[in-house]
C-alpha cells in the first residue's frame, strides 16, 4: 500500500472493470451502509408505512435529536482520522474530553462569559494535545503507552477538579449555571440544529480541506504510509505528529464543550469510552489501521452511522444490548477493512 496510490487521482489505464467496481465500492460503501442503517431502523419501527410521522425514525425531530447528541463524536471523527492516517493513535481523547467538559463548566459556573470560557477551554485542549505530542513525538514513547498515561492523568485531574461528594460540576451550593450554558448544545440556530453541531460540521470541512488541499494531509499520509521514506524525503514527521496530536486535543476540547453544554453539567466521566467510539467510526470509515490511508469525510459518515445505530437501537432493543452491538460492529469493521486491503494488495 503505497503513498502514491493514495495521493494520485489518475489510475493506470490497465485497470479492469472489476477494479473499478471494487474501487467504487470502497469509496462509497459507507454511504450505502448509512442508507441501509436508516432504512432498517425506519422500517423496523414502522407500525404503518407512514415514514415521516411522529414516533418513527425519519421524523424530523428524531433526526434533529440524533444529530444533537452526535455533536461530540462528529467533532472528534475528523481529527482522529488524520491521526490514524499518520499511523498514530490517541487513547486519551475520552479523558481529554471529560477534562475539557469539567473546565468549561467550572469556568461558566464561576461567571466567566461564554466566549472567554470557550477560548480558555480550547487552549486547555491545545495543552492536552501538546502533552501527548511531546510524549510521543519528542520522548518517542510508544503512542499506546503515552496516551494510556495521559488517559489516566487527564481523568485524575478531571476527577480532582470536581470536589469530593459531588458527581459533577452543576448548579448548587450557591452557584448556578448561567442561562446560556446549554443553548450551545441544544438550542437550534439553523434548521433546528444547535451551534455544537454546526461547529462539528465546520471542523470537518476544515479538516477535509486540510487533507485534500494542504501539505498537512499529504504529509500525514506519507508519515503513515512509510515513516522512513517520509523522513528521508525531508518531511519533519516529528512536527507533523505533534501538530496532529494538538488538533486532536482541540477537537476533544470542542467535543467536551458540546457534551457539557448538552448535559448542562461538567461530568468528569462524560468522555469515558469515547476513544473506543472514535476508533470504531474511523475504522468504519475505511481508514487502514496501519496508517497511510483514510478519509475525513468517510469517518464523519461513520460517526453518523454509529450514532443512528445507538440511538435508533434504543427503540428496538433494551439499552443493555448497546455494548454488544458496538463491539461486534468494531470487529466487523476491522475484519472488512482487512479483507478490502488484502484484495487491493492482491490486485
Amino acid at each position, binding site marked *: 500500500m503505497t503513498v502514491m496510490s493514495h495521493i494520485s487521482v489518475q489510475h493506470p489505464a490497465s485497470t479492469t472493470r472489476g477494479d473499478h467496481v471494487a474501487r467504487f465500492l470502497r469509496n462509497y460503501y459507507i454511504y450505502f451502509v448509512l442508507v441501509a442503517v436508516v432504512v432498517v431502523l425506519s422500517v423496523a419501527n414502522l407500525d404503518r408505512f407512514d415514514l415521516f410521522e411522529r414516533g418513527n425514525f425519519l421524523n424530523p425531530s428524531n433526526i434533529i435529536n440524533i444529530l444533537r447528541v452526535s455533536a461530540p463524536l462528529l467533532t472528534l471523527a475528523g481529527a482522529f482520522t488524520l491521526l490514524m492516517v499518520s499511523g498514530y493513535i490517541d487513547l486519551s481523547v475520552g479523558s481529554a474530553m471529560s477534562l475539557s467538559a469539567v473546565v468549561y463548566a467550572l469556568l461558566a459556573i464561576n461567571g466567566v462569559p461564554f466566549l472567554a470560557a470557550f477560548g480558555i477551554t480550547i487552549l486547555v485542549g491545545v495543552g492536552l494535545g501538546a502533552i501527548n505530542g511531546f510524549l510521543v513525538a519528542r520522548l518517542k514513547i510508544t503512542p499506546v503507552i503515552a496516551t494510556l*498515561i495521559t488517559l489516566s492523568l487527564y481523568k*485524575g485531574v478531571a*476527577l480532582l477538579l470536581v470536589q469530593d461528594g459531588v458527581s459533577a460540576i452543576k448548579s448548587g451550593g450557591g452557584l448556578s449555571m448561567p442561562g446560556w450554558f446549554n443553548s450551545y448544545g441544544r438550542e437550534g440556530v439553523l434548521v433546528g440544529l444547535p451551534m455544537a453541531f454546526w461547529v462539528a460540521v465546520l471542523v470537518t470541512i476544515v479538516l477535509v480541506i486540510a487533507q485534500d488541499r494542504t501539505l498537512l494531509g499529504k504529509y500525514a499520509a506519507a508519515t503513515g504510509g512509510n515513516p522512513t521514506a517520509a523522513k528521508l524525503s525531508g518531511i519533519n514527521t516529528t512536527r507533523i505528529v505533534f501538530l496532529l496530536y494538538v488538533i486532536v486535543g482541540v477537537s476533544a476540547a470542542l467535543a467536551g464543550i458540546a457534551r457539557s453544554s448538552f448535559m448542562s453539567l461538567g461530568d468528569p466521566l462524560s468522555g469515558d469510552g469515547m476513544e473506543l467510539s472514535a476508533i470504531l467510526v474511523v*475504522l468504519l470509515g475505511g481508514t487502514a489501521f496501519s496508517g497511510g490511508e483514510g478519509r475525513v469525510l468517510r469517518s464523519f459518515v461513520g460517526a453518523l452511522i454509529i450514532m443512528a445505530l445507538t440511538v435508533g437501537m434504543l427503540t428496538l432493543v433494551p439499552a443493555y444490548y448497546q455494548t*454488544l452491538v458496538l*463491539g461486534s460492529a*468494531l470487529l466487523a469493521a476491522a475484519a472488512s477493512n482487512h*479483507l478490502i486491503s488484502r484484495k487491493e494488495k492482491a490486485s
Partner: protein
Amino acid sequence: MSDETFITLLVASVAVGLFVVASVSVPNFFQPLTMLNLVTNNWAVISLGVGVTFLLVSGNFDLSVGGVVALSGVLAVWFAQSPDGANPLSTGLGFPTWLAIVCALGGALAIGGLNAFFVVRLSVPSIIVTLGTMMVARGIAQVITQGSQRNTNLPDDFGMLGNLTMFGTSVKLPVVLMVILVVVAVFIEKKTVFGRLTYWAGENAVAARLSGIDTAKHVTYLYLFSAAIAGTVGILLASEFKSGFSNRGTLMEFDALVIALLGGVAIAGGFGSVVGMFFGALILAVVTSAATGMILSPDWQFILKAIAVFLAITTQTWALAWRHR
C-alpha cells in the same frame, strides 16, 4: 547479567525502595497485615498480568481480559442458578456448580479463540481486536444480566471456591492459586521451549516463522491461555461475592497492562518477565495504598498511576541506554 535480569532487578529495587519510603513516611504502613494485603488485594490483577505479560512478550496486546472476567462470572452464575426463579434475573439453567464452572470457562475460551482468529488468521492489529472482544464479552454479560447483576437463587456450594480460606489463615484460595500460577509461569517462561519460543516470536516474528516456528499456533495458545486465566479469575470473583456482575473487572485490562509495563515488559515484544510484572504490581500497590494512607482523595490514584508508568518507562529506557553506552 542479561538486560532482562538487569531491568527486573531495577524494578524490584524500586519496589523495595518505595516500600521503605512508604514505611517511614506513612503512619501504620509498616505492619505485617499491610504487607500481606499488598499481595492479597491484588491477586486478580496479578493473575491477569501473567497472561497479558506472555502475550506482550510475544508482541500482542490483550485488552479483553476485563471483559472476560465479567463474562465468565456472569455465565457461571447464570448456568448455576436454579430454573425456578420468580423473575428473569433469578432464573438460570440449573446446572450443578462444577458443570456451570466448566461451561463458563468454555465461554471465556471462546473469547480467547475469537481474539486468536482475528489476530492470527485475519492479522488485524491485536489492540483493536481485543478492544472489540472486550466490548463483545462485556456486552454479552450485560445482556445476560440485563445491565445489572444476578445474585439470587444460587446453590450454596457456589460461594465455596472464592471464599475458601487456606492453612488456617485469612488467606483465601484465589491468592494461593495466583501464587501457584506465578511460579508455574516463571518456570514455563524460563525453563521450557514454549516459554523461549514466546520470546522469539515477539523479538522477530518473521525470523521465528522462517526458522520453522509455528507462530500462528503459538499466539493462538497464548490467547487461549490468557482467556482461561481471565475466565478463572471471573469465576472465582463471582463465587467470592456470590454474584455475576456485568461491570466487574472494568479497567482491569488497563491495570494488567500497567503492571506489566511497570515491570519492564516491552510493548514491542520480545522483552519482559513475569517476575518483573509481579514487582510492577507491588510498585502500583505500594503507591496506591500509601496514597490512601496519607488520606489523599481516591481520585489521586489515576494521577499517581500515570506518573508511575511515565517514570517507569523513561527510567527503563534511560537505564538500558546507560548500560549500553
